[in-house]
């Protein structure tokens, strides 16, 4: 039944009013800044003309020149490769951990113990990266606690903070230490949403612990897990910034340069804004493609995914 626009407005205006601030926020802080992407196609000089807008209008158009510079730069591809390796590594070795921890937590019977473990594991999430890395350096660095103990007992040194070949394990461990607890929140909510009668029915049918996990728990959180996985994939070319910039010198550019640090060193510091915007666009393009593909696959497997066209 098609109502007239006026009638629909009349009916829906409280809802529209409620969404308006969020829509405005999105417009002002996301869609308008998106227009700034034009500088990816300019030899952007922020000091042209009399205002920032003038600078956009008067900078030279150089077509795809910035992208050519970018794609010609082997350091850029190093950064892309590092970023993707870290993302893939963390998909395998980080992504499942919050799920496991959440299942373990939800099976702890004592509410007191459970909330204690939760609080302790959430806490590191609120530490800044500077603090987390300082903590790791103080513990595992060459002048840290572990190194001093090893020295005292004349044991061989274990060089983990400055070893480029194990850097990917180091950053993943840091990320796990910082965020695994925080990551459980959403899965705990999903677990709480599973109907307890399903467990009872399965138990009556003779299902043991593992069978209940496999046939009730995991299917119960599958749609949430898939949703998070797709979102993570879309963000695949962002692995964080502070964590890498802080440790970049320790292991070198070859191992630690990710796309965001590349943009910082090659575009922001030397003020090559056009090049930085080009790298940002590249990143967004790949991210969008990854989301679309992952979503398609999710649909194929009968999941809802992030959105559905139906």
């Amino acid at each position, binding site marked *: 039944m098609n109502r007239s626009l006026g009638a629909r407005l009349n009916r829906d205006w409280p809802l529209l009013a409620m969404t308006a601030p969020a829509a405005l926020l999105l417009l002002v802080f*996301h*869609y308008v*800044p*998106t227009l700034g*992407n034009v500088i990816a196609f300019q*030899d952007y*000089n922020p*000091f*042209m*003309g009399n205002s920032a807008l003038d*600078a956009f209008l008067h900078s*030279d158009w*150089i*077509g*795809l*020149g*910035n*992208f*050519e*510079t970018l794609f010609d730069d082997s350091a850029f591809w190093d950064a892309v490769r590092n970023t993707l390796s870290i993302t893939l590594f963390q998909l395998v070795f980080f992504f499942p951990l919050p799920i496991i921890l959440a299942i373990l937590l939800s099976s702890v019977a004592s509410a007191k113990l459970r909330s204690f473990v939760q609080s302790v594991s959430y806490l590191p999430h609120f530490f800044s990266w*500077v603090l987390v*890395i*300082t903590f790791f*350096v103080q513990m595992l*660095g*060459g*002048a840290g606690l572990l190194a*001093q103990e090893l020295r005292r007992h004349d044991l061989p040194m274990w060089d983990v*903070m400055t070893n*480029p070949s194990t850097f990917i394990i180091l950053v993943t461990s840091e990320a796990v230490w910082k965020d695994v607890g925080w990551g459980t929140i959403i899965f705990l909510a999903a677990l709480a949403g599973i109907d307890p009668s399903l467990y009872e029915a399965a138990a009556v049918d003779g299902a043991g612990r593992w069978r209940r996990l496999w046939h009730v728990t995991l299917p119960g959180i599958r749609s949430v897990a898939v949703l998070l996985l797709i979102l993570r994939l879309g963000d695949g070319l962002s692995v964080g*910034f502070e964590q890498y910039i*802080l*440790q*970049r*010198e*320790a*292991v*070198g*550019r070859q191992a630690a340069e990710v*796309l*965001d640090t590349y*943009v910082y*060193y*090659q575009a*922001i*510091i*030397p*003020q*090559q*804004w056009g090049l*930085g*915007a080009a*790298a*940002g*666009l*590249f*990143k*967004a*393009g790949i991210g969008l*493609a990854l989301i679309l593909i992952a979503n398609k696959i999710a649909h194929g497997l009968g999941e809802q995914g992030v959105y559905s066209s139906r």
Partner: protein
Amino acid sequence: MGAGAVAGFGLGLGGWHVGCSKRASAQGAATSAAEIAALLPECRPVQLVLPDIEAQQPLPNGYLKYPSPLVRAIADRPGRSGRTIKTMSPWWGPTPPGLGRNAFLDAVNTELGISVNPSVQDGNTFADKLSAMLGARDVPDVLAAPMWEIDKIPRFADAVKALFADLTEFLSGKAVRAFPMLATLPTVAWQYCVWGGRLAAVPFPRDNPFPWALFYRKDLTDRAGVGVPKTIDELYAFGKAMTDPARGVWAFGGIFDMIQMLFKCPGSKGGWRKRVGGGLEYKFETAEFRQALEFTSRLFKDGMVHPDLVASKGGDAMQLFHGGKIIAVQNGLGAWAGSQSEQSKVTAGYNIQPMPIFSALGGDPLAWGAQDPVFYTFIKKGLGKERTQEILRVLDWCAAPFGSTEYELNAYGVEGRHFTRAEDGSPVPTDLGRRELAGQYSFIGGRVPVIVATADVPHFVQDFFAYTTSTIRYLEQDLFEGIKIALPPNYSKTIIATEDKLNDVLRGRRPLSDLHQIVREWRNSGGDEGRAFLEKTLIRNGR
């Protein structure tokens, strides 16, 4: 993060036609010494107190006794409009309390007759703030920025033209007489305040020409019975002797610049010298640099560099030095007196001294030198003539020389609150003084530099002149002296990328034999472009 976050929507790359487009093309620029000379302010020195040590340029005058009584240098209050002046300046230390919670600011603002509201930013990350601020064209009324950050910014002449006031009409030639204290600043420093043919900044002149010194903890080496190294082998032995991991002590912080200097790598404009047979060569291309790289990578390999500095960018060498965890660091001479004064209160017997320089290759040593100012202070464009003059009067107040009451208030704060007087009459900072003073006024306006004896750092003046006068004999002639140079962006960019690669060699992640390839990449990605630009600049200046 910055431009990375700018991207909002995706575009398929597949169908793009690549090949018919231009690359970004910012050029370098140089203003010749002759053009600059026509713009310079008249120099009218004012000497309120006769110096005990009258030094030759580029060294400052020295004072062994604190003068009394002080002289009032400026009669009128600089501020008239009553409108707050917002400033931004760097500081290497804890952030001081802001306006309204800071008695030092209140005291100086009362004296100025106007409210100056400083935003003091961490000097180590100043470039990040500066880049974003310039890119957004959003600058405060007064901006003081270190010259080494300004030098890295491509198209800075464009930025000056778009964002900062042209001070030529106020300061050039005789016009500077309206600001008699600014007129005392040395001509050498003003030479570098020209961009695009306009006088655009007020300089903070340096008090010595040396960018680096190698400081060591004399109290600790004396206790260990280790002497001051006089050869490069002795420096290595010094490192071996002073490193004691079991006690958490390592000999060195990052000292690669100093090692390059000891190996006599060239230092003009970052490292250029004339090549035998014509043209210029950069330090990366020299045998001296290769040796310096090899030596420093040995220091890393043999575990003489503090692991915290090896492991993280966050490691603070000076803090570890103060704690006795590092024995030798490189720093500017400007860090000397402050470190001694502050740490004497923390560590009994604390003694920081610069190591006399020597040549790693035999013969005379080489001292890198520079004459450009430490900071440049810019005034925002479009404030109007009267407001600009008012701000210049505030900077004029800040430029009042040693021996004036203004200088004392600027440098030490209020007697009884921020400092007390020692028996010899010299000011000694109190805890409040150390907390509240952070260069809020001294960094936005330079003064004629002086070295003054104060009771909190006894012997400093003697030590300072002993070091500088013995080092100045070996000062390298700056090829580009008095020429204002904006380097080509491709060149500045490739320096950053190459330093990353050299870091890999230093830390042993790449073999020394890769140096050849690193230099070739450097040449192709902007090094040769920089060379051609600088060679042309020299020819145009008849050098």
